[in-house]
């Protein structure tokens, strides 16, 4: 009996082309769109090395470490500078005037930067100098004691152009700032899965559809049917989310970090959250199917917006000014769980999000149960 119902509910759900579109194809299309729109944002190749020059001071005590650092950031694929060495300040000035370089460094006790105009490249050079100044003492010391260290770590910090680009772009954003868009996308897909849960409730509540009324006259407990149907809905949604994850991971090469198991677990949690959310709304909002769908879409889209799907900084604005809202927004909980899995070494933040999601699931399930356990209706 359970299998009979499960099997047919599965068929009913999977053949609902509209639902399959909104819960699977739409997120995939949106993901592809994001990918095309953002593909430049993090593209290493799109950063062109800055043409710069250095004017040695003649004092090798100052020149040697600085030129070393400059050289190391001026080679390789991700080089920061296209570096030339000028014989004199006059020559460097000439290059600058001719537009051959964006600026030049003058070595010495304090490193000087000379630029002609202000712009991104000039700002990066400025940041570079600032950072060199603060760490030059240490760098010089280490270079003396252990020259290899320069190559191994210290210089990488200095030469990682992304940290300069970030500083220039003025936000405290994390290195890979595109990921969050894709994380909200998955969260959105999970919550769109609420359509499945809503459908299950509509087909079990006799005061909502005639089909449900007929089913209610059969010799079988309503909750048993509901559980069989919801299980079918959950399996479909979870499979869809896994397909979406696979597409993002292998098709679009979106990085989810090394914790694959936990990422999949989060997807499962998100699927359960979506189904139970839809069931709850569908049980509470008795009026027509249209209103239910409108409610679900509104909550999902508002939640996605507040989690940064349309404008990334929204997520930070909300968590800064209305922290409660970010804890009550199921889309944000899911987004943040993926985010925490990727960025944080310890699982504390992830566990907080997961715990909060479980709480939501319990509330939704309990609420749904309290409404649908009635087997006789006041009106049909």
């Amino acid at each position, binding site marked *: *009996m359970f299998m*009979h*119902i499960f099997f*047919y509910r599965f*068929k*009913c*759900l999977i*053949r*609902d082309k509209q639902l399959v579109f909104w819960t699977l194809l739409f997120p995939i299309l949106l993901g592809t769109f994001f990918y095309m729109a953002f593909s430049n944002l993090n593209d290493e190749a799109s950063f062109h090395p800055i043409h710069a020059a250095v004017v040695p001071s003649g004092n090798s005590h100052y020149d040697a470490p600085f030129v070393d650092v400059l050289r190391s950031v001026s080679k390789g694929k991700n080089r920061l500078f296209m570096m030339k060495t000028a014989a004199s300040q006059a020559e460097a000035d000439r290059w600058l005037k001719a537009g051959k370089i964006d600026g030049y460094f003058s070595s010495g006790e304090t490193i000087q930067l000379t630029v002609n105009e202000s712009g991104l490249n000039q700002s990066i050079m400025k940041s570079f100098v600032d950072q060199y100044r603060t760490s030059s003492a240490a760098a010089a010391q280490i270079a003396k004691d252990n020259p290899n260290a320069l190559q191994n770590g210290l210089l990488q910090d200095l030469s990682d152009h992304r940290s300069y680009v970030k500083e220039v772009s003025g936000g405290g954003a994390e290195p890979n700032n595109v990921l969050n868009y894709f994380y909200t996308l998955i969260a959105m897909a999970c919550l769109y899965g609420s359509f499945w849960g809503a459908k299950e409730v509509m*087909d079990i509540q*006799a005061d909502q*559809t*005639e*089909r449900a*009324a*007929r*089913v*209610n*006259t*059969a*010799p*079988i*407990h*309503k909750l048993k049917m509901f559980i069989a149907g919801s299980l079918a809905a959950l399996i479909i949604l979870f499979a869809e989310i896994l397909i979406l994850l696979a597409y993002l991971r292998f098709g679009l090469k979106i990085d989810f970090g090394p914790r694959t198991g936990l990422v999949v677990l989060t997807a499962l949690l998100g699927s359960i959250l979506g189904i139970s959310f839809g069931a709850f709304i569908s049980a509470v909002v008795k009026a027509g199917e249209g209103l239910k769908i409108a409610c679900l879409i509104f909550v999902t889209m508002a939640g996605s917006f507040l989690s940064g799907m349309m404008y990334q900084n929204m997520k930070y604005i909300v968590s800064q000014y209305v922290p409660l809202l970010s804890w009550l927004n199921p889309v944000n909980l899911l987004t943040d769980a993926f985010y925490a899995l990727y960025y944080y070494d310890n699982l504390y933040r992830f566990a907080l999000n997961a715990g909060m999601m479980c709480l939501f699931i319990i509330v939704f399930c309990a609420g749904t149960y309290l409404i649908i356990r009635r*087997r*006789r*209706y*006041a*009106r*049909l």
Partner: protein
Amino acid sequence: MIIHVKNLLKRYGDLVALDHLSLDIKEGEIFGLLGPNGSGKSTAINCILSLLRFDKGEIEIFGKKMTPDAYESKRNIGIVMQNVAVFNELTVYENIDYFCGLYVHDKSERKRLVEEAIDFVELGNFKKFHPKKLSGGLLRRLNIACGIAHRPKLIILDEPTVAVDPQSRNKILEGIARLNEQGATIVYTSHYMEEVEQLCSRIAILDKGRVIASGTQEELKAMITLGEKITIEAFSINEHELQQLRELSGVLSVQWVEKRLVIKSGKKAGSLEAVLDFLKTHEIGFGRIYSELPTLNDVFLEITGKQLRD
């Protein structure tokens, strides 16, 4: 007694939908619940099925109190809802199989039952069709097949022929009669008196949530004073003569509308003869003559003072 309903009271807010309704339906009969729109037929059915909460009263099916948990009783009930209640995502065959499977667990038995139901409603050529592709009449037949595939002992049909063409309607009525011959007790609601007259062995007439009359057709028609309705084409007649006609023995009422005399007479025979004699002696020309026996509509009209259908 297959269904026993006593003093059922159901309110929707201030509206009393069922006003101390009592019904007794015996095994083997085709019981008709006849009433105009909004008289409470569906409400009564849904209360009987334990879908609706009600304010007062008792309901027994197969001699047991009816509750949502009365699975033993439910197993033997088949219902056909007023509106088509099928899944659009499932084919004709799958829909019937799904509903049948809620009652019958054995797979091979179920397969046989589903095939039989499909033959019964003559949907053999449409097994793989989705409901959206079916015409209104075919859809109604599918709706019926879903309700009866598990061979219930009691079949409740709530206006199964609404918006169905006459041909399909006749097929459906014949089918219901056949199910009854095969041993099922039928409860049939309708606001078409012709259907109920054609089909039902016993009838309860419902108005404003109350049973205003019940019994066999003959019993119902015997309840009223009208025995015969005579219509005569008469070309000219004056008010004095009309008055004289009204005074003839056995004549209940006389009206002259659009060159037709409509005479209602009581149960005693002989009114027609007397009327014709009167017309001849007063040299009133007349044409064709019709005579009709009372219908359920007349019963309804006489008891409530209004037409069953407007």
